[in-house]
Structure formats: structure tokens, C-alpha cells
């Protein structure tokens, strides 16, 4: 594989995977927040 092809592969795969992973993490955080919202915790403390 030529150097430029290696560089392009690395750039596309690297940026693609980084963007996708961080996007998945965004969704995971939203999901976690939906399952465990802050208010619920306060109610539990109140009990």
C-alpha cells in the first residue's frame, strides 16, 4: 500500500470511528439520564 493510501485509510477510519464512538456515548448518556434522572434520586433520599 502506498503512503498516501495508508494516510487516507488512517484518516477516514480514525475520524470515522472517533465520531461514531462519541456519538454512541452521547446516546448512552441520554439513555442513562432517562433511566436515572436526578429528581428520582432526590425523592429516594426523601423517603
Amino acid at each position, binding site marked *: *500500500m502506498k*503512503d*498516501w493510501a*495508508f*494516510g*487516507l*485509510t*488512517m*484518516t477516514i*477510519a*480514525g*475520524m470515522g*470511528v*472517533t*465520531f461514531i*464512538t*462519541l*456519538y*454512541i*456515548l*452521547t446516546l*448512552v*448518556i*441520554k439513555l*442513562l*439520564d432517562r433511566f*436515572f*434522572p*436526578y429528581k*428520582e*434520586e432526590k425523592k429516594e433520599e426523601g423517603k
Partner: protein
Amino acid sequence: MSWIDILSALVSGFTSLTWQSAFLILLGCVLLYLAIAKGFEPLLLIPIGFGVILGNLPLAQLASGEGQTGVLNIIYQAGIMTEIFPCLIFVGLGAMIDFGPMLANPAVLIFGAAGQFGIFLTLLLALALGFARQEACSIAIIGACDGPTAIYVTSKYARDLLPAVSIAAYSYMSLVPIIQPPIMRLLTTKKERGIVMAYEEKKVSKRVKILFPIVAGLITMLIAPMGAPLMGMLMLGNFLKESGVVGRLADVSSGALVNVVTLLLGLCIGSSMLAGNFLKWQTILVFLLGLAAISLDTVTGVLLGKLMRVLTKGKINPLLGAAGTSAFPMSARVVQREGQKANPRSFLLWHAIGANTGGQIGSVMAAAVMLAILAGMHIPPL
């Protein structure tokens, strides 16, 4: 033994001093000056600067690297060549980081990806300049704005470049407040920089804070296992802190452990900066490419910020994109300062810290993908 022999033995240190060693000792003194007088990353530049002086003393056997036998070399081989030091520093970093702002506003995570673009653009530049693939990856990773990650990748694939890459990575991390603002001002109008973003300190439940390092760690490490040593340690450190039941371990990780490792790491890196492997044109190119990497990170981050400003109809301040690098918390502070210069009512720190912690995760992901591709192509270390 004649008096002349005794005298020559006593002055052998002076007579063995070459101009190259003297120059590097002087460079070590400059690093100490920058750390003390200018306040540039003193925690790192003082051990590195002192290490440079010790490593270049003739006949002292305090240098680190290939063929060396002194005490600092033992620490170098045990801590850097085995990749233990970068991993331990990540435990400390994890224990210091508060993912709260990012968990409260996960949309800013995307800036953490844009802030890594400079890594890959620099990789292309380094390849175009004739560097070997392993060297190009090691140089490009300076754009992660993250010393331990740069050391981790370089110690795996291009050990000869380790002194230059690590000094460049740490120097540019400390120079972020100087490098980023002109680029931010060049790419944005005063009106854009002055956009006030809605500030509402959204509370995040303790459960989310505890679960995040486990869930995020699992996902990222399954996607890119090559980055697991760094990501795993980062998430471990954060879990120690957020679990709330091992305060002593969290305190040690974010205090004593990270301080001791930083001292030893700095000393070893400094003592490996020897004339043979540092005083060459290649080093200057590494420094120039490192500067390009961090500048390009800022450019791509701000450009994504501008795009987000358009997509959200003016709700996002484009400066936020500059905080997508993992220079934590320097980039976030720079964004806050530049935003307030343009509009004193603007308060971007909360959002910028979120993007900055996203950059921390993004930089490890970028490094992990790089390592995975190098391993997948069976490219051997140099």
C-alpha cells in the same frame, strides 16, 4: 600513578564535555527557566529540564535509552518501555476529571471528535515529508494534546522519536493559551465569539456518574481494544472517584501516584534527550509538525463550531469547538477567556469543560484506532 594522571582523572568530566552535550545542558536550563519564570507546565518541565541536564553530563551514566546502564535508564526501561507510566498517569487523570459538565450536556461530546482531526491531517503531512509510517503516526499523535497518549503510541512504534515527541507534546500543551486564541479570532467574527449560550447547571444523578465510566469504558474498549490500557485506566480512576467509597484510593491516584509518576516520567524523558537522538533536523520537523497538529485541531474544532452555530440557528458559540482538544483544562479556559473578551456577559466555561473532557476520550479513541490499523497492517515497530 603520576600527578598528571590524577589531575586528568579529576578534570575528566570537563574534558569529556562535547559542545553537543553542553548545548543540551543549556537547553535543560532553558526548560527550567520557562517552568519557573513563565509558569509553563512546571510540574513537567522541571523534571524534564533537570533530566536533560543529568542525562547529558559526561561520564555520569545518568542517560536513558538504548545502550545506557545508569539508574535513570532502569526507571526508563521499567516505566516507559513497558508503557506503565502513561497508564498510571491515566489513573490519576481519571480521578481528577469531572465528567459532570459533559454528562449534563452530552451534545458537546461531538466537539471532542472534531478536535482530533489535526492528528490525521498531520499524519498526511508527515508522510508527505518522508517520515516512515510508524514515525508519522507518532508525530501526528502530538495533536492529541495529551502527553501520556503521545508517549504510549511513540514508545510502541518509534522509540527514537520519543524524546522529541514527548517534549513537543508537553510543551505545546502548556502553550495552548498562546497557540489557540489567534486561530480562534481569525476564524470567527466578534459577533460569533460573543454568542451567549444558555447556561443552566443541570444536575446529574450519582448513579449516572458511577455508571458512566463502566458503560463508556466497555463501549470504547470493545470498539477499539488497542486503546484499552489507556481508556481502562482513565475510567478506573474516574470510577474510584465517583464510587464515593474509596476516597483514599481516589486521593492517592489524583495526588501522590500521579505526582510520583510525573516526576519519574519527566526525569526519564529528559535524560533520554541526548545529542545523538535529539540534535538533528528531524527534531525540528517533529516540533513544526506538532505545532501544525495542534493548530489544525483548533481550526477543525472551530469550523465544526461554526457549522453547529448555523444548524442550531445561533445557539452554539463556535469557540466551543476549540475546547475539543484534550488539553484539559487549558483549552476550556481559553474558550471562556476569548468568549468573555468578545462579550462580558458570555459564560462558556461550563460547556467548554464538557467539550474538553470529550476531547480526552476522543484523543484516546483516535490513538486506539491508529494502533489498531498499524497492528492490522502488520507494520512492525521501528
